[in-house]
């Protein structure tokens, strides 16, 4: 046995030599100290391995020369059947993975060796064989492919593609900023997992560490070391709970006798959660806390941790993490489809969105249709607005035209009326100028006067165009009626000096235009409103007293207005009434009046400017209070009868006036609505075709 301090002294000398810049040769040192050769060999080997770490010159590390106690050497250890091992990549659940090169080629693969030592060696060997069996049957672009299965020195192994981008857990940070890429990646992973499920293989150990990315970022599911066969019902009987805790589903943690593909869906949800938030949904200080969190806690919604996560993706993720397996996606494929839906801006199953949101999504999916539809709707709206504004303009114009037409008609009626009244006046004037009448008045021969009145104004001479007088009478200079025909008897001898027909006529005694059209008065004879035409005369010569001859016209007389009525236009005569103010009128003649009907006051104030009447062109007919046919809006034109206080109104129903225009507008709207409906139908049809 050598001195325990001796080896350290030699080691110190060796190191000091190295530090001095010498190049000590290990074999020489071992030769110098044969008793210490074994310890020195170990020491030199360690220096070879760690010299660079300590900053010793590299050439000290010449481990090939140290060949005393390890005859197989490094090279031999690196040899593994037809492969040359190039270093351990990692350890999976059931074995060690090496980087390995197939001898004589440049093919570099990942080689997985089963762990064959320890108490559970045989169980491990069995599991390893199962793993090989499970993994080698799976050929999918997103599952790590198995190349070759073999055995070396009694150790089973298999080789698979060496995928160079590292496992997903090293790349989580770069997915957090981009939910779309997370969704796209997980859709691929979910499809690969579904492919395995379809071949009755349940992975049971899905986690970012088992998803390997290649150089282009494509994911590859690997390590089927815990995979189990599914039975006919899609369930797997498992022994003890297995898997990596943070990704284990509640039912797997509880150790339920059989689990289903839902546990893989859960794990996919956890991975998605990690990609979206860079944190795990269920965390704790130790395994017990994590276990409790998985069993009982609802995860913080991904959106709360990363505002970039859209609501739909958040919902998809949380649906995978439903504690109840039946509430998760029914398959990994269903998850992949929902992720695809989200990627295509479609409505996802995990969350029902509102109609507006769906419209937005639909528009994003079908930008051409959406803009087309939007454009049509805009166009239709613009059309409708233009039509409404045009319709309003046109209605205003139309109304003005109608009113002007009415006013023109009213002026025409007024002049006709003036002409007719002139004729009546002529007859009354002629009677007043009759010398026999004047003589009879001077002689107080009242029956003679009445005879002349009858003959000239009411008698045999009455023809087709004769004035429609009902009575004629003579008043003496005091205003007392001296004679009347037909003799009603009640008014003769009574004084009417305050009547307008008396005062108005006497005021014209010295004028050339002697004819006076009186205001409307209430007849004492028959209690009806009447109008009188009166003329002054002087039977005792130009210097004698002034008498008056009058003749009454009844209100139910048309005064020749009747011919002007048609289906749309009505002509109406307004006259001032003795018992009312000077600008207040009654409706003297109206087509609605029946015979001997009392007049109705005209409530609207009228202002006169020469022969023009300033009044609102739209009005409500006062007659409507008694005759409902005349209710509603009217458009009216007014005209004054020259030299009289009479006013003619020509009125037309508002609805009748604008009816043709309304009909046109309605037809236009129908066309627009029809076109819009047709367009919508067309777009919907195209959409349906595309969808199917």
């Amino acid at each position: 046995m050598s001195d325990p301090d001796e080896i350290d002294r030699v080691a110190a000398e060796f190191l000091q030599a190295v530090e001095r810049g010498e190049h000590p040769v290990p074999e020489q040192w071992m030769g110098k100290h044969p008793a210490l050769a074994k310890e020195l060999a170990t020491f030199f080997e360690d220096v070879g391995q760690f010299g660079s770490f300590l900053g010793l010159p590299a050439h000290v590390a010449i481990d090939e020369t140290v060949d005393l106690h390890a005859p197989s050497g490094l090279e031999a250890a690196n040899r593994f059947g037809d492969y040359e091992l190039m270093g351990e990549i990692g350890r999976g659940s059931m074995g060690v993975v090496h980087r390995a090169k197939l001898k004589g080629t440049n093919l570099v693969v990942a080689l997985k060796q089963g762990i064959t030592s320890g108490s559970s060696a045989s169980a491990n060997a069995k599991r390893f064989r199962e793993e090989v069996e499970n993994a080698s049957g799976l050929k999918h672009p997103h599952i790590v492919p198995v190349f070759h299965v073999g055995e070396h020195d009694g150790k089973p192994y298999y080789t698979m593609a060496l995928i160079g981008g590292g496992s997903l857990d090293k790349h989580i940070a770069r997915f957090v900023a981009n939910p779309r890429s997370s969704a796209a990646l997980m859709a691929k992973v979910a499809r690969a997992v579904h492919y395995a499920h379809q071949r009755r293989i349940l992975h049971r150990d899905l986690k970012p560490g088992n998803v390997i990315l290649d150089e282009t970022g494509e994911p590859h599911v690997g390590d089927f070391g815990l995979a189990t066969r599914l039975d006919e019902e899609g369930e797997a009987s498992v022994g003890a709970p297995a898997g990596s805790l943070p990704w284990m589903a509640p039912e797997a943690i509880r150790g339920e006798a059989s689990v289903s593909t839902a546990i893989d869906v859960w794990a996919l949800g956890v991975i998605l959660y990690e990609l979206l938030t860079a944190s795990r949904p269920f965390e704790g200080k130790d395994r017990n806390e994590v276990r409790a969190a998985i069993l009982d806690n609802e995860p913080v919604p991904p959106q709360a941790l990363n505002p970039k996560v859209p609501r739909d993706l958040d919902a998809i993720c949380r649906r995978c993490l439903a504690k109840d397996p039946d509430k998760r996606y029914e398959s990994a494929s269903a998850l992949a489809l929902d992720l695809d839906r989200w990627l295509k801006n479609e409505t996802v199953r995990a969350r029902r969105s509102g109609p507006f949101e769906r419209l937005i999504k639909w528009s994003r999916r079908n930008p051409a249709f959406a803009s087309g539809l939007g454009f049509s709707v805009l166009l239709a709206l613009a059309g409708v607005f233009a039509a409404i504004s045009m319709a309003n303009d046109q209605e205003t114009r139309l109304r003005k035209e109608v009113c002007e037409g009415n006013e023109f008609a009213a002026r025409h009626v007024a002049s006709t009326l003036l002409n007719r009244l002139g004729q009546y006046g002529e007859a009354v004037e002629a009677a007043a100028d009759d010398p026999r009448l004047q003589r009879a008045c001077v002689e107080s021969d009242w029956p003679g006067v009445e005879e002349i009145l009858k003959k000239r104004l009411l008698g045999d001479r009455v023809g087709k165009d004769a004035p429609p007088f009902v009575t004629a009478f003579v008043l003496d200079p005091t205003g007392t009626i001296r004679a009347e025909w037909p003799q009603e008897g009640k008014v003769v001898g009574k004084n009417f000096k305050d009547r307008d027909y008396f005062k108005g006529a006497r005021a014209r005694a010295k004028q050339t235009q002697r004819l006076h059209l009186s205001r409307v008065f209430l007849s004492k004879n028959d209690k009806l409103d009447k109008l009188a035409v009166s003329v002054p005369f002087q039977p005792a010569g130009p210097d004698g007293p002034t008498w008056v001859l009058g003749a009454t016209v009844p209100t139910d007389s048309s005064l020749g207005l009747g011919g002007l009525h048609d289906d749309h236009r009505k002509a109406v005569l307004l006259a001032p009434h003795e018992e009312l103010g000077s600008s207040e009128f009654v409706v003297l003649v109206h087509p609605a009046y029946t015979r001997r009907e009392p007049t109705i006051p005209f409530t609207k104030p009228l202002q006169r400017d020469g022969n023009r009447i300033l009044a609102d062109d739209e009005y409500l007919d006062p007659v409507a209070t008694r005759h409902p046919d005349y209710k509603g809006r009217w458009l009216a034109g007014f005209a004054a009868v020259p030299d009289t206080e009479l006013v003619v109104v020509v009125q037309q129903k508002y609805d009748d006036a604008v009816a043709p225009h309304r009909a046109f507008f309605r037809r236009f709207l129908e066309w627009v609505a029809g076109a819009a409906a047709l367009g919508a139908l067309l777009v919907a049809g195209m959409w349906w075709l595309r969808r199917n």
Partner: protein
Amino acid sequence: MPTHHDSNALAPEQYRSYLRALARLQVAARPWLSPKLDASDLVQQTMLKAHAAREQFHGNSSEEYLGWLRQILTRTLANALRSLGQAKRDAGAERSLEADLDASCSRLDAWLAVDQTSPSESVEKHERAEILANAVASLPADQQQALLAKHCHGLSLNEIATNMHKSPAAVAGLLRRGLERLRELLAGDHRP
């Protein structure tokens, strides 16, 4: 074409284990600090600073990016030392720390280059560095001190002996047993 903004290539997350290895070695090299400073915390602070200041990085390659991260780690470590009253308030403290980190870094890289059979796999390489740092940190204190005096400060055997008040042979013994233990630790556990 701002390649340096490619989040994939230059995500600080990729360097977390490597930075943790560096930090752990630095903390271990100052055994009086070990109870007060946690390497993971230092790295976390570094990550946060790097994220906050990511616009200030104008390099292109991942080497430059790692260098930038290392600068931040150096400053973080210097601040931590200062707040613990362990560093003199002069600029020299930071400079010597930077030198230590540089040396540590290049020796670690040299070791990784020799040791690792798959140097292209940077992520794996970094994990390997962390495994080594963890193994070093788990060594008995005197072995650790001797190893790190060489690794971080590049002291000679005699200098270490003077500092540790031991004979050169005793130090060589610490180194020898330390390396042996290290090899056993690394052979026993390859897992992160």
